[in-house]
């Protein structure tokens, strides 16, 4: 029982980070059909902005996260307009190569600026230690992650369900040509969705800095996990990656807890099985 609660709790915290980072990738891949391997770069950038602001300028955690969100969203829109947009409709190989190129460059840049070591993270004192939730105590930081994660997700889903932007986005993911024919400016929509997705990734990077260490290898080391969330969840969906992130979070945590000898073996095998069963992912359209 203790074990089960632990697994669920830690799995959930891990899943939140995975989801917040990856959801943007799912939407942009679904919307633009763009294989963006460099998505992790935005999460890494968000992590660096957050941590550097806190360490070097003593900016409060919340404000640092906000700055990271805005800064990375703006940066991503510049990249999208100047570079990504040229490759819409190009082959997968070109997109893969281009985004690998971006990864290499960004890794070299952050290494040059801040060195190869992981950035030390000093969270506010309220977030350290344990919090008693009645049943038992839980690590405060992870509880905070789960709460913030759920709030963000609620906000995101409400936004996509209730706002005009959300309606246009759903229409464009559904049928881009149709959406264009009823006068939706899909180019603008792409840019907005891209910025939002990258901003969320940055937020995920900053929020999760204490779980997924911020160092130059970030963009490659965790890439496989972000891609797994998207591939298993299905492109262009909000719900899909959520379920996938939960599966991955619970699965990975349970494996480490119960059968550490198997390592990542189970996770990869499960993914192969899932994708064979549903090649377009759990919530993707074939």
């Amino acid at each position, binding site marked *: 029982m203790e074990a089960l609660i632990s697994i669920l709790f830690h799995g959930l915290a891990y899943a939140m980070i995975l989801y917040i980072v990856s959801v943007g990738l799912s939407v942009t891949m679904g919307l633009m059909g763009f294989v963006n391997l460099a998505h992790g770069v935005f999460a890494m950038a968000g992590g660096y902005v957050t941590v550097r602001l806190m360490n070097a300028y003593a900016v409060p955690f919340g404000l640092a996260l906000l700055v990271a969100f805005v800064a990375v969203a703006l940066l991503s829109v510049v990249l999208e307009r100047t570079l990504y947009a*040229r490759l819409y409709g190009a082959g997968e190989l070109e997109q893969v190569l281009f985004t690998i190129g971006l990864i290499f460059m960004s890794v*070299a840049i952050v290494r040059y600026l801040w060195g190869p070591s992981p950035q030390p993270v000093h969270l506010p004192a309220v977030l350290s230690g344990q919090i008693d939730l009645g049943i038992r105590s839980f690590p405060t930081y992870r509880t905070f992650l789960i709460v913030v994660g759920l709030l963000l997700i609620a906000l995101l889903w409400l936004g996509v369900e209730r706002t005009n932007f959300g309606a246009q986005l759903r229409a464009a993911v559904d049928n881009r040509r149709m959406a264009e024919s009823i006068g939706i400016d899909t180019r603008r929509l792409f840019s907005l969705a891209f910025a939002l997705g990258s901003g969320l990734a940055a937020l995920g990077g900053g929020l999760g800095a204490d779980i997924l260490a911020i160092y130059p290898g970030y963009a490659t080391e965790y890439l496989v996990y972000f891609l797994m969330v998207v*591939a298993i969840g299905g492109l262009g969906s909000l719900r899909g990656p959520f379920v996938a992130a939960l599966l991955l979070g619970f699965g990975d945590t349970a494996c480490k807890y119960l059968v550490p000898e198997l390592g990542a*073996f189970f996770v990869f095998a499960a*993914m*192969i099985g899932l994708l*064979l069963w549903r090649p377009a992912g759990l919530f993707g359209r074939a």
Partner: protein
Amino acid sequence: MHPIDTLLARHRFRAIELLPWLIAVAVYFVFGDYLPLGSQILIMILFALSLDLVLGYAGIVTLGHSAFFGVGAYAAGIYAAHVSGEPLSGLVLAACAAAVVGWLSGLVVLRTTGLTLLMLTLAVTALLAEAANKAGFITGGADGLQGMDIRPIFGLFRFDLFGRTAYLYCLAVLFLAWLFARRLVHSSFGRSLIGIRENTARMHAIGSPVRRRLLTIYTISAALAGVAGALLAQTTQFVGLTVLGFQRSGEIVIMLVFGGIGRLYGAFVGAGIYMIAQDQLAKLEPAFWYFWIGLLLVLLVMFARGGVLGLIDRILRR
């Protein structure tokens, strides 16, 4: 000239195709100090060549080709460490092992396309890497496989410290592989792969067993990649988990793309330039090596999709 003859002439052997081999032989005599690097370049050329068959010709965008390189390396390594140090039989065994893995994973992976295919190739590689990591009792796990004692080739040519034997051995194997690959891409089968790359739907509609063709080339390519891996294992007498790494898969794609995909010689140009540049430049500022590679990739995608050979083509045509 009649169009048919023009077309046939394109498949005929041209003198310029001898150039890489002349260079390779010249290197042996002129740059005797650089043969260990030379051997690794030859191995990477072979690996890139095998990738060209699936990526360049059949259009399968994979990020998991190191799976086969790794299986070949481990097969040859384990054979040498536990069974026999005879190199040629090790090479054959590695080719077979990689082919089997290629065929099995191809059965799964080739049912899909796009992102799913990409993810599955990644997952297969990760799975194998994890297996190699966990089966430490036979693979050496994260510490790598040591203790291979490779016997002289034909019982005559010992692998020497200066890497002369290793270089010539790799060169001979690459030459044979090239002969085979060249024959393959100019055959009807090779042309039909290009057809699949250009338009899979149409290949179905002209009665081509697309899945079987893809599986065939995937298996062949896996075997060649396995031979490349085996060469690395035998010439360095070591196999580590990095042979199955994502980085190796990514780097080999980059090398091939630098050279130019679907051209057979892109592998030679790309792997050659990349490895030499890395050897020279990475020494000066290793961190920024990746910055320049990244920048070059972005520029390549934006302006020169055919790679170096594509650029040369364009210049010649002008």
